[in-house]
């Protein structure tokens, strides 16, 4: 325990370095901006800022990216409450009561409880993260390549299970991401694969290009069909303030939201979105007067907002201690770390303690910064929300073009971005989830290396993945995660026939 405390103090000494503090403030502000604006979400927002942070020390870079991540969540709740447009899926549940509150002229308390709830949830979950991450990383240190390969299979399969309506489409998205990762020179043998004589492809397809193309460009293409000349209706905010009564009313919703969010967040793939819906549902069920939910009940804002923040922290655990990102946003953050030559996973705690503990401490700092920064700045963000879409979307396109060009200074990257934008547009229109593709791209290289190393150790015997006990159990879990949804739906269809056999 004292060891954790000492590490945390060391972390604060990193996070509170002036440069890192400035980066956290700038990141929190930019993140809120990204969360408020439609078009650029957390994935493409973080990806676009990778070229900017690349000159920084890894710890500083990760601190800034985390602040951005946190900021986007705050920004997303602001739009949910004021415009009824959730910035991302994880703040959909906030619209139910948040927008209703704003319509009744209670936007102030809604925004305040979102901020306060997120802050409390964030702070409590970071404590839990410190207690969980280190033991998990210690345990994972004993893993060989076979176990790591199995872990990545589990990460990808569970993300695919929960990602969309069709498991097959989600798996196709995953495999496409993995396939994109194979482009470029093979690290072991030096053979060029799938480069078709294009020299810019030798280093592989850049994460920034894929994230921006698939997520941001496709979004602009999607709205191109129905942009109107009208300004958006943004509800008025009087005073962002919370009475003691409102706070006490929300207190248990915040605590329950935190617990639910944190545990859901740890599970790969089951991220902030599921956590926010689940905690909203729990509050509604526990309430003495559930009929008030959906009509502007403050607990209906407090619960999902606390849950999605706690889940965002929980999401960091598999990334930090196992090197397996649990969501597309953490996948992009992990990609950024890899560009900075920090290999995420259990060894990070010993090799880069400044990165891990600096990050953990900076999560506390980001929470505080956002609470202080955002409440007074709500007026500014409301103004930004009023920017007409006809000016906003062209600007987003230009920022994407500059950001992708800045990575490799090559026109090939831009063409790839456009092609991936078209692909992302098709996938969105036809219900293919995009998250698994990004996860596949980020994990692809390491997954192949792990597979090949495991086979070297086993002298080429493929059974190594199922004869090593830990690897076998993890792969079994992966299989269960893929098959379970089907079995459950079959079982529900014939409850009586199978009830006896199940015992």
């Amino acid at each position, binding site marked *: 325990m004292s060891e954790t405390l000492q590490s945390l103090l060391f972390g604060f000494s990193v996070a509170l370095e002036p440069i890192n503090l400035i980066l956290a403030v700038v990141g929190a502000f930019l993140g809120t901006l990204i969360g408020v604006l439609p078009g650029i979400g957390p994935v493409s927002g973080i990806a676009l800022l990778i*070229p*900017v942070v690349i000159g920084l020390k890894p710890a500083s870079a990760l601190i800034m990216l985390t602040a951005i991540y946190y900021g986007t969540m705050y920004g997303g709740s602001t739009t949910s409450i004021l415009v009824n447009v959730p910035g991302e899926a994880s703040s959909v549940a906030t619209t139910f009561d948040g927008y209703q509150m704003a319509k009744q002229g209670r936007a102030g308390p809604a925004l305040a409880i979102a901020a306060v709830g997120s802050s409390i949830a964030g702070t409590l979950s970071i404590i839990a993260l410190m207690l969980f991450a280190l033991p998990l990383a210690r345990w994972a240190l004993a893993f060989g390549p076979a176990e790591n390969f199995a872990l990545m299979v589990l990460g990808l399969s569970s993300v695919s299970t929960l990602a969309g309506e*069709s498991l*097959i*489409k989600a*798996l*196709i998205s995953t*495999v*496409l991401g*993995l*396939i994109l990762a*194979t482009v470029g020179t*093979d690290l*072991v*043998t*030096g*053979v060029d*694969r*799938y480069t078709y004589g294009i020299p810019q492809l030798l280093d592989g397809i850049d994460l920034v290009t894929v994230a921006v193309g698939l997520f941001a*460009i496709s979004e*602009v*293409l*999607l709205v*191109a*069909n129905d*942009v*109107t*000349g009208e300004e958006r209706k943004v509800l008025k905010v009087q005073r962002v303030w919370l009475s003691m009564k409102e706070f006490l009313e929300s207190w248990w919703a915040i605590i329950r939201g935190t617990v639910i969010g944190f545990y859901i967040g740890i599970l790969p793939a089951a991220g902030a979105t599921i956590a926010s819906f689940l905690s909203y549902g729990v509050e509604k069920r526990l309430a003495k007067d559930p009929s008030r939910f959906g009509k502007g009940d403050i607990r209906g804002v407090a619960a999902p907002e606390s849950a999605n923040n706690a889940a965002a922290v929980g999401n960091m655990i598999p990334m930090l201690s196992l090197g397996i990102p649990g969501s597309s946003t953490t996948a992009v953050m992990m990609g950024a770390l890899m560009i900075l030559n920090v290999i995420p996973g259990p060894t990070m705690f010993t090799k880069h303690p400044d990165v891990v503990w600096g990050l953990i401490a900076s999560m506390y700092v980001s929470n505080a910064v956002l609470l202080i920064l955002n409440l007074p700045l709500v007026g500014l963000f409301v103004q930004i929300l009023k920017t*007409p*879409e*006809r*000016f906003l*979307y*062209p*600007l987003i*396109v*230009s*920022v994407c*073009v*500059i950001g992708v*060009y*800045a990575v490799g*200074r090559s*026109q090939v990257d*831009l*063409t790839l*971005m*456009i092609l991936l*934008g*078209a692909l992302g*547009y*098709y996938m969105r229109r*036809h219900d293919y989830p995009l998250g698994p593709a990004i996860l596949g791209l980020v994990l692809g290289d390491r997954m*192949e290396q792990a*597979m*090949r190393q495991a*086979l*070297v150790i086993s*002298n*080429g015997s493929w059974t190594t993945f199922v004869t090593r006990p830990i690897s076998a159990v993890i792969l079994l879990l992966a299989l269960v995660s893929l098959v379970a949804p089907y079995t459950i739906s079959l079982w529900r269809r014939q409850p009586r026939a199978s009830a006896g056999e199940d015992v």
Partner: protein
Amino acid sequence: MTTDRLAAVILLILGIQYARQSLTYRGATVADVVGPSAYPLILGTLLALLAVALFVESRPRADGGTFWTRHGRPVVLLGSLFAYTMLLEPLGFVATTFAYLTLSHVWFGERSWLKAAGVGAAVTFGLWLVFDRALNLRLPVGPLGPLP
């Protein structure tokens, strides 16, 4: 044929082609028993199998409207984006971005050309200030030479 089935056929061809090409990669070394072809071979096979599953799973469903009514504006946007990125290096950041922004403001619904150009100029200057000056990302200058 529904869009999903068409996609399934394309993915099947893609998967098979990708797997076949993986077989041409050779170069197993002592430190690597399976070589560079095994992993992509697995991926290609997986993709082909998933494509077959997609074909079987998909139900015939009528998509409303023709291709152009459904995807006309996104296709135009893709075209303009392509032109913008192709001209970025030869004409420079300032000229292309100003032209792109002005034209797309109007295309996205701005009625006044003057306002479209005004906002275009202001945004171009702002972007140049942030990316070229503050972040030092050295945007392409074009034939007009760098701004002071």
